[in-house]
Structure formats: structure tokens, C-alpha cells
């Protein structure tokens, strides 16, 4: 098999300011054979996206330097030696790319038909009528429902999955030899992800393309890739056939990536983290103790939610208003020291449940009894003492910490508001102790959030909640924005804190594997309604509702876990 794309000793540097620069890609070599799917896997900062952008020639010219010894050969042509015009002629025609965010990759003011047609007119010189016919055929090929109508739709009128289909149609319009897919499913729900991955796989076979599939999710790789390249910190850690890399990984880092993600069929006491693998504490053949989950008869309820509803109103016409029911008749009981997982896809209302319980949204009807008092109907003043009892950790640690506050100020604020601690000196001691408890140095006290990584910021957010010693902690997609290895560490921390302080968690996530690991009881939501609720083990073993079943079926199962090996 001939190599279509060969990258040899690629070194890329980014200039940050006049004196400093970082090497993002450190001598990477790999090749993509014809008619094959190659997956480039790594966490953030591994250089996987940068390498692919270098192939497309999309790196910002002013700040990027590609070292002179680097080589990118496509079909025998050295891309780095080509002029910008020749490069542009190749891109889109011979090499095409799909990006992560379909919404921001499509121009919102043109119809999708026009945007696909543009590629055809530009590269193939088709006339308007011919381009439209081809566009219709392409939309049909990528599985767009009702292509004759959707061709005149604007991107905002399509769902995320449909938008990604348009992006794919655009990419394959000129029958490229190489398709680069940069995290094409990361922004999509699991069920849609499954469809898109299947689509890419079938197109690859049908059109004899080569696909370079970039992802952070090793589970997904098993579903699509023939070959796998694992990257970390700008270097290739392991390369090989997919079955070999996924089933018998040689590099400890690959092993760590594979196994620090929670799986559906095993629930260890603690999730192994990367360091465990690198130091050999964890690995295949090393026994793990399983944690048992589920409610027992002795559990006392701490929060009883009954028929909670939340509607949003949008104005329609001059006087009319349209009601949108975000959540409808949600009822559940949260037991002390236990975790209730809420799963669902985007738009299911799972986040609204969390925000409404914290009164960040005003509930339309229903009640939430905490120690016999209804949190939903009491006045703002009466609610104030309860604020410290129920806290929330948001999804995005980059947005939930005020960038203008030091970590110290962030932690001191709730202590001052709720008059915890005798004086400021006592509060500083308390805050520093909490920082150490969540695994940060006490020196972090005087620093600003932007100096910390995503995982560390999430620890700061956790510490902020801990200052108030809450009874209930709402974790709203709290680990979804984190890399797999960091995710394991934060999940371990949350579990340790629950064991230590006996907090109850409301764990909201779209990730069924993570919920399986964390939750005692699971509630599945769809379109604002609860469709199924059961003990975690029961629900995953014997899902009753068809929606739950389709969710479970959509989880990529590229690999087998330790316990089943």
C-alpha cells in the first residue's frame, strides 16, 4: 500500500511574544496510507490538531515557524515547498477537512446549498444548475433527511448533527483523496456521534479515501480506525494497527489513556491515573477492588423534589408569548451521602434541574423539600442561610472563576458572606487548608485563575464549594471539559470528598460511563421529562425505556476493560 501522506520530523514552534516561543510539535513522523483510516489520538496540548493544521497549511503565518528539516509529502509532492496559491488549489480539492464545531464552521448568512455549491463552482468550475444537482446528490449521500428542502436551509435551522453532515458533504464534494476530521463528533451527543462516525466510515469505504481522524477519545478510535498514532506533549508515543494498540498497548501512556476512563463494566474503588501507569502501580493484571453502589434501606433522604417544572417564555408577535417547557414534573429523592446521576442529551433539561434547585432559575411549579422546608417557594432572604447548604460546580472551569480575583479572594468571599471563621486570619488558615485538601499548594492562595490548568481550576471551584461545607453538591457536567487523565483525578477527588464529608451529589452528565462510575441511582431525562429512574447497576444491566437503551448502545466500545480481559 502506498503512503498518501507522509510527515517526517515535523517541528513546529509558536512565538508567544518577542522573546519566548514554545515547541508544540517536536519531530513528529507518521504516514497515512491510501484508502485507510488513521487516528491521531492525544489529550489537549499533544500537538495532534497542530500537526493536522500544518498539513492543511492553516497555521497562523505570523507566529508559526516550521523547522527547515520538516517534511510533509502528499502524493509525492512536498507541501512545505509549495507556494500559497498551489497550496490553496490542493486544499479542498485533494485534501479536505472537517472541524469540531459545525455551527461556527458554517457561514450563518448563506444557505447550506450555496455553501456546498461554492466548493463545486470554485474547484470543479460547475455552473449554478449543475452545482445544485450535485449538491442535492451529496446531501443525499451524507444522509441528510429531506435534502430537497434542506438545501435551502440556513445553518441555524439545522441540528448539530445535520450541520456536521453539511460539513462532511462540503468536504467530500470534490472527491478528495485525504479527509482530515478534527474532533468531528466532540460537540455532538452520543447517539448523533455514532451516526456521524458510521457515516465517515462508510464514505471512506465507498470513495476509497484516506481519513486522518483526530480525537481525544480512544474508545471512539476502535470503531473507525485501521491504524492509531498516540501523541503526548508534541511527540508520538505509540503507533500501530488499531487492534494491536487498543488491545495490547506497549506504551504506559497509551495504557493510561485507555484505562483511566471509567468503563461500563467495572467500578474500581479509585480510578487509576496516569502516574499510576507510568510508575507501574496500575496496569493489566494488577487486581482492583470494586466499589458497590446503590441505595440501601438505611438511607435517609436529604432532598425531596416533587413535580418540579420550569418553563421559559419567548415573545411571539405583539402580545403573544410562547411557552417552552424546559423541565416537566421532575420528581426524585436524594439520599444523604449518595449520588444521583442525571443523564440525557443536550436539550433534555438536565442542567435546568440543577440550576432550578439552586434558584438560579425560578421554578414555575413544584417543590423541593430540604429539611422539611420548600426551597422553591421561600423568599430570597429566607433562602440565604440555605445557600451554603447546597452548592454547584459548573462545567467550564475557565468561566466559573472570576478572572479578576485571586484564588484567595475567591475562597474568602463565601467565608465572609456566611461569617464562617472568627476573623480574617482564621479564614485564611481555613482557605489554605482547603486548597491543600483538594490537592493544590497553599501558595496558590495569591495567584490568579489563569495561571492554572483546567483540572486545577476545577479543584479551585471545588474548594470554593467546600468552604461552606454544603450538604448537597450539584456537579453540572463538572468533568466534561477535562482531559481523560485529569477527569480521573477530579472524579477521585470528588469521591474522596464524599466519603470524608458525607455530601450528597447530584451528578449531571451526558457521559454514561462517568455517571455509572459515580452514581448510586440514575435518572434518565429526555425532552424535559424523566423517562427512567433506577439503581445504577439495575439501569445499566437492564434498561427499560427504549431511549435509555439507545443511549447505552451509542457508547463507543472500542476496547475491553481490565476485568473482562
Amino acid at each position, binding site marked *: 500500500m502506498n503512503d498518501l501522506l507522509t510527515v517526517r520530523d515535523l517541528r513546529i514552534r509558536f512565538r508567544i511574544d518577542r522573546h519566548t516561543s514554545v515547541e508544540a510539535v517536536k519531530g513528529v513522523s507518521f504516514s497515512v496510507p491510501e484508502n485507510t483510516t488513521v487516528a491521531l489520538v492525544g489529550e489537549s496540548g499533544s500537538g495532534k490538531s497542530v500537526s493536522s493544521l500544518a498539513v492543511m497549511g492553516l497555521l497562523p503565518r505570523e507566529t508559526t515557524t516550521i523547522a527547515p528539516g520538516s517534511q510533509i509529502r502528499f502524493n509525492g509532492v512536498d507541501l512545505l515547498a509549495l507556494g500559497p496559491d498551489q497550496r490553496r488549489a490542493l486544499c479542498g480539492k485533494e485534501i479536505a477537512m472537517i472541524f469540531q464545531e459545525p455551527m461556527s464552521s458554517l457561514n450563518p448568512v448563506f444557505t447550506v446549498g450555496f455553501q456546498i455549491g461554492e466548493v463545486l463552482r470554485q474547484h470543479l468550475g460547475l455552473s449554478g444548475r449543475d452545482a445544485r444537482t450535485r449538491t442535492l446528490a451529496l446531501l443525499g449521500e451524507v444522509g441528510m433527511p429531506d435534502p430537497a428542502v434542506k438545501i435551502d436551509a440556513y445553518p441555524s435551522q439545522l441540528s448539530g448533527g445535520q450541520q456536521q453532515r453539511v460539513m462532511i458533504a462540503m468536504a467530500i464534494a470534490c472527491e478528495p483523496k485525504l479527509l482530515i476530521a478534527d474532533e468531528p463528533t466532540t460537540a455532538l451527543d452520543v447517539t448523533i456521534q455514532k451516526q456521524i462516525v458510521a457515516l465517515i466510515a462508510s464514505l471512506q469505504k465507498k470513495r476509497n479515501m484516506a481519513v486522518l481522524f483526530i480525537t481525544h477519545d480512544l474508545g471512539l478510535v476502535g470503531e473507525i480506525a485501521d491504524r492509531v498514532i498516540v501523541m503526548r506533549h508534541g511527540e508520538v508515543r505509540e503507533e500501530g494497527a488499531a487492534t494491536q494498540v487498543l488491545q495490547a498497548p506497549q506504551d504506559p501512556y497509551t495504557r493510561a489513556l485507555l484505562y483511566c476512563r471509567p468503563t461500563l463494566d467495572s467500578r474500581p474503588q479509585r480510578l487509576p491515573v496516569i502516574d499510576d501507569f507510568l510508575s507501574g502501580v496500575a496496569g493489566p493484571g494488577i487486581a482492583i477492588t470494586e466499589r458497590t453502589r446503590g441505595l440501601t434501606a438505611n438511607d435517609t433522604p436529604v432532598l425531596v423534589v416533587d413535580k418540579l417544572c420550569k418553563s421559559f417564555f419567548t415573545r411571539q408577535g405583539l402580545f403573544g408569548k410562547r411557552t417552552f417547557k424546559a423541565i416537566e414534573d421532575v420528581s426524585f429523592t436524594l439520599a444523604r451521602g449518595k449520588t444521583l446521576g442525571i443523564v440525557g442529551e443536550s436539550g433534555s433539561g438536565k442542567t435546568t434541574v440543577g440550576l432550578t434547585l*439552586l434558584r*438560579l432559575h425560578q421554578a414555575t411549579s413544584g417543590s423541593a423539600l430540604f429539611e422539611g422546608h420548600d426551597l422553591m417557594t421561600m423568599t430570597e432572604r429566607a433562602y440565604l442561610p440555605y445557600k451554603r447548604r447546597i452548592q454547584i460546580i*459548573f462545567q467550564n472551569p475557565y468561566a466559573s472563576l*472570576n478572572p479578576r480575583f485571586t484564588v484567595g479572594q475567591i475562597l474568602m468571599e*463565601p467565608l465572609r458572606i*456566611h461569617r464562617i471563621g472568627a476573623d480574617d486570619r482564621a479564614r485564611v488558615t481555613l482557605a489554605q487548608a482547603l486548597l491543600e485538601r483538594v490537592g493544590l499548594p497553599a501558595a496558590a492562595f495569591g495567584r490568579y485563575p489563569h495561571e492554572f490548568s483546567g483540572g486545577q481550576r476545577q479543584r479551585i471551584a471545588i474548594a470554593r464549594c467546600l468552604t461552606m461545607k454544603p450538604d448537597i453538591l450539584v456537579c453540572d457536567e463538572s468533568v466534561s471539559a477535562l482531559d481523560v487523565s485529569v477527569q480521573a483525578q477530579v472524579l477521585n477527588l470528588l469521591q474522596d470528598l464524599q466519603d470524608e464529608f458525607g455530601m450528597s451529589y447530584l451528578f449531571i452528565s451526558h457521559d454514561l460511563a462517568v455517571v455509572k462510575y459515580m452514581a448510586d441511582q440514575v435518572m434518565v431525562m429526555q425532552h424535559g421529562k424523566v423517562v427512567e429512574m433506577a439503581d445504577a447497576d439495575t439501569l445499566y444491566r437492564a434498561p427499560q425505556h427504549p431511549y435509555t437503551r439507545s443511549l447505552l448502545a451509542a457508547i463507543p466500545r472500542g476496547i475491553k476493560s481490565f476485568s473482562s480481559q
Partner: protein
Amino acid sequence: MTDTFSPGLWTLAWRRLRVDRVAMAALGVVVAFLALLALSGMGLVAADWEREVGVNYAPPAFIGPDAATAAAQAAHVALPPNPFDPLAGDIAVLGKTGAVVAPESKRTTLPFGADKWGHDIVKKTVKGGQTSLVVGLGAALLAVALGTLFGALAGFYGGVVDDLFNWFYSVFTAIPSILMILTVAAVLQQKGVATIVLILGLTGWTGPFRLIRAEYIKHKGREYVLAAHAIGASNWQKMFHHIFPNVSHVALVQLSILVVGFIKAEVILSFLGFGVPVGTVSWGSMLNEAQNELILGKWWQLAAAASAMALLVTAFSLLTDALRDALDPKLK
């Protein structure tokens, strides 16, 4: 990463600003103007600007004395005593008692010339700059303070409060600005620096209001504000303790844009005769005088006031531009 406390927003902004040479030069000019303002305000510089030290319209020193004036003065000195002067005796008596001071000898040239009354143009420009800067800074501070307060309230609370402020805003902006200024001037019925500050401040808040309101709308839904709400921070704390530091760059940039605008506005007002009262000098009143002088070919007062203003305004604009970049809130 050895020190326990990290550089804050201002330290970082200062570091970024220091690399920018143009910005540093502009900052130097602005600081020099502010220092002059302080000195003249304390009376250390240009306190005696009203002394008529030169002959009227004495030209700048680098041009040399006006031929006609010099001749006249020379002729005056050469004038022989007049034996038939009927007042000579009285004047001699008065002169001995000290009631009549011998006319000072006036200078025929000054460093940058003199105006109609023989005031030193350099001192007049410094004194005029004091008025202009006080007006510019004072009015800009007032306008931005009002705009920020209204914008914060409107953006944060939304709903009826927002509608109310927006109507108020629309009424203000519906009237042509110069008419608005003249209306407020007519209502206040007092000429003075404080009046001009009030006029410009009360009409200039609309721009900052709109921008700050938009920022508050954007920020109030951010997770860090929701988190502040969840821990029990009050609305006031959320508005000014949490959100304001994150939008302060907008207010600051507005401030410097308005300073430039108001210095120019004061010039226009004074030019129209609605500006500073008689006896107070500003760059605007200097330009107002210059229109008559220019016909006589006396260009130096115009040149002095105009170039001082151009220098300050240009420096301030450049500084503003650099500040906007340096204060970019993307602290990553």
C-alpha cells in the same frame, strides 16, 4: 513561580504598555501636560499670565520686533520735552508723590509673541491648558461615572429598569448634541468652568451607558456570576465587585476617548461664546480671539493654542489605543 503573589491586572497591563514605545512617548506627553496643570493650579507656573508684559501683538522672538512698533517706540524715546505742555507741572507733582507710575517699558518681542493686550502667549497657553484639561477630565469622569452606573443598573436588572433607562437614553440622543448642550447651558444660566463640566458630563454619558450596558448583559449570565449568586453574594456585590473589574477596560477606554472629545467640545463652546467666562482663559477662548487676529496677520496665538491642543489630543488618543490593547481582559 517563586513569589506567592502574582502580578495583577494592572501590573500585567503596565508590562505590556512598557514594551510599546509609541505608547510610552504618548504617556510622557500626557504626564507632562498633567504636571503643568498641577503646577499652574498651585500657582507656581503662569500665575502672572495676566500681566501685560509686551506691546500689543508683540511678535515671537524668533521673528524679531515689528519694524513699525520698534520705530514708534524709538520715536517715543527720542521725543524731546515739550515746553508748552499745560499739564507738565501737575504731572511732575503727582510723579513725586508716587500716584502716577511711570509707564513700564514694554517688550517688543516675547518668546512666542503676545496677544492684543500684550499677555505672554506661552503663559497664556499653559493657563488655558489648565482650564481645558480640568474641563476634559472632569466632564469625562462625570460622564463615564453616570454611564457606568446607569449601564450597570440597566444591563444587570434588565426588564422594566432596562426599558426605563433606554427610554431616557433615547430622549437624550434624539436631540442634536450641540442643541442639547446649548439647552443645558441656557438652563444652568451661569458661566464658569464647573458649568461646562456639568453641561458636557450630563450630555456625554450616553456613549458609555450603551457600551457598559451591553457588557453587563453579556456578563450577568456568565458562570462566575452564577457562582457568586450561588454563594450568596448580593446584587450590589455582583454588579460592582464581580462584574465591574471585568468590564472596567471599557469604562477606561471610554474615559480617555471622552477626554479628547470634551477638550475639543470646550473649544467649540468657547468659540461660540457659551464657554468659559471673561477673565478665564482656555484654549477655546484663545482660538476665539484668534479669528480677529488672523485678519491682522497675527497668527501666533492661534498656532500656540492649536499646536498645544493637537499635541495633547494626539498623545491621549495614542495612549488610549495602547491602553485598549494592554487592558485586554483575556487574561487567558
